[in-house]
């Protein structure tokens, strides 16, 4: 995805170095090849299941024991991480291999940023002139998005909550996500016309996060 990457290219390089540098590619022999495969699968499982709700710093800057990582995976699955049961083992093996021993894989110095730089990714864009139709958007949302993001857009089996999220005030980014997709979200470039995108955005903007009174 490109919609946020260009802002922090240096950060990405640091991340790649931390995340990927220590994988044991140089190993040989059938057992090591197996382990190499499992770690690669685990890394994929991490990428596909652990980055939709929070950035990787939440994970890759932690150093936890196998027991603690297993508990984190269970907690996150309970909270909505769509980890397939058969991937749990390789994900755990991967996390333990990379992010357990602070001596073997020390946590690097954190990024430094001004507040303005840090807020750049969530700050609202200038308001748009053209507005979509929320009623049409509701129907379009129900048929294209609800399976993943849930009927009320509060998050479903595969998609995150969209209610009152900053991306709704960032129409350029919103359109980019819709057209190109992000990780497990498919792109809708061919399926949705620009008016349909605007209609869906208009409907999403009407949603509010509320709890029923007890």
């Amino acid at each position, binding site marked *: *995805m490109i919609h*946020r*990457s260009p802002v*922090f290219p240096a*950060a*990405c*390089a640091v*991340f*790649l*170095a931390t995340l*990927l*540098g220590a*994988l044991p*590619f140089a190993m040989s022999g059938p057992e090591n090849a197996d382990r190499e495969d499992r770690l*690669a699968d685990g890394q994929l499982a991490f*990428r596909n299941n652990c*980055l939709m709700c*929070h*950035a*990787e*710093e*939440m994970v890759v*800057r*932690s*150093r936890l*024991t196998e027991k*603690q990582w297993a*508990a*984190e995976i269970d907690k996150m699955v309970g*909270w*909505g991480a769509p980890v397939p049961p058969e991937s749990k083992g390789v994900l755990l093996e991967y996390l333990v291999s990379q992010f357990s021993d*602070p*001596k073997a894989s*020390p946590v*690097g*110095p*954190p*990024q*430094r*940023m*001004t*507040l*303005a730089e*840090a807020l750049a*990714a969530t700050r*609202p864009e200038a308001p748009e002139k053209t507005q979509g139709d929320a009623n049409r958007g509701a129907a379009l949302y129900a048929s294209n998005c609800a399976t993943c993001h*849930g009927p009320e857009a*509060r*998050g479903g089996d595969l998609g995150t*909550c969209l209610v*009152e*999220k*900053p991306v709704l*005030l960032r129409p350029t980014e919103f359109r980019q996500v819709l057209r190109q997709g992000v990780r497990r979200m498919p792109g809708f470039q061919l399926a949705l016309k620009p008016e349909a995108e605007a209609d869906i955005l208009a409907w999403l903007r009407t949603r*509010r*996060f*509320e*709890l029923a*009174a*007890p």
Partner: protein
Amino acid sequence: MSRNGMNQGDESSFLSGRRDWLRTAGALAAGAAAPQWLRDGTAFAEEKPGGSESKMIVRCLRPLDLESPVEVFDSFLTPNDMFFVRSHFGAPAVELTTWRLAVRGLIERPLSLSLDDLKELPQATLPAVLQCSGNGRSNYAPTVPGIGWGKGAVGNAEWGGVRLVDVLKRAGLKLDEGHVHMLGGDAPPSAKTPVFLRSLPLTQALHPSTLIATRMNGEPLPVQHGGPLRVVVPGWAGHNWIKWLRTITVAKEEAPGTYQQSGYRMPKVPAPPGADLKPSDLVPVTTMPVKSLIARPSAGARLKAGRVEVRGVAWTGTGHVTAVHVSTGPNAPWQPATLLDDERPGTWRRWRWMLDSARPGRLQVRVRATDSNGQTQPETTPWNRSGYLWNGIDSIECEII
């Protein structure tokens, strides 16, 4: 960091095959010269000098968790743009909504108050320390899950707004004992993720210093700090200071759900790692223990021999700070520092102490505060599994040249 944590280039290599993607990235990492922190194995290189003091320390970009560099604490009030930022699910798009505060539950008159309605209530302003309950988490060994805060998930601001008690009075309380549930506009990322619903015991909610803040250091409360409305509970740790406040519910019981019933709890009696704790062994994390930080000189500073003023801040959750002591090494005597500012609960006091060093070489400076309850900072705080309320003695190393 970008949403997917990968740069543009790797997306295509990712698609072209898992192994190829891994190899490219591995080669990239191997090609770069290992930085110093990797070579000498120091875990907390971030405490070393080098970073610009005007930049925040990034703990996580989504949700945004930013830490203040300690040099910022060389001042009574912490500026808004250098004040630490923390939330569980990230700031909501507050600009989408005409903000209203709903008051409901065991009250006479349910309310829906606009920001203008709040302006008509009596206004209150007070300075108070806001500290994340996890500040200093990175000091705990063995390490625990959660944001690995160093020293700077704390700050002191002047908060302005209305008293929570005035809002509750206007709604007409129906009970004397109970709890006030608080919910913000920040929706969790999944319908399966617990909502960040918290409650305050009514006694604390009725305390005149408990505010619904609309202003911070004289400015409208910035969104990243909870604007337009945030609860302020002086003396209590940050997880009680609900941001983006939208709903208040008065109830007999504490708030239900993970964040009140199992999160933010600590053992009554310190328990070692692996101890089997029952829910009844745990109590909610409320007030902050006494603590102090050195703001100047910076860790790792190279100082000319002679007189150098050491400065910092000290605070506590109940009462006020009565003494701060400084020493220049683990076995050196504790010497009293000069305290500034009022003996006022909830906020911090600055302190200063003159270091007079004739001998060149490395020097450790340590600081320890004592409060009006007779509590003094411990050498290290007993371990707890979520890494809350660290208040071990602060120290820095400098070099006299």
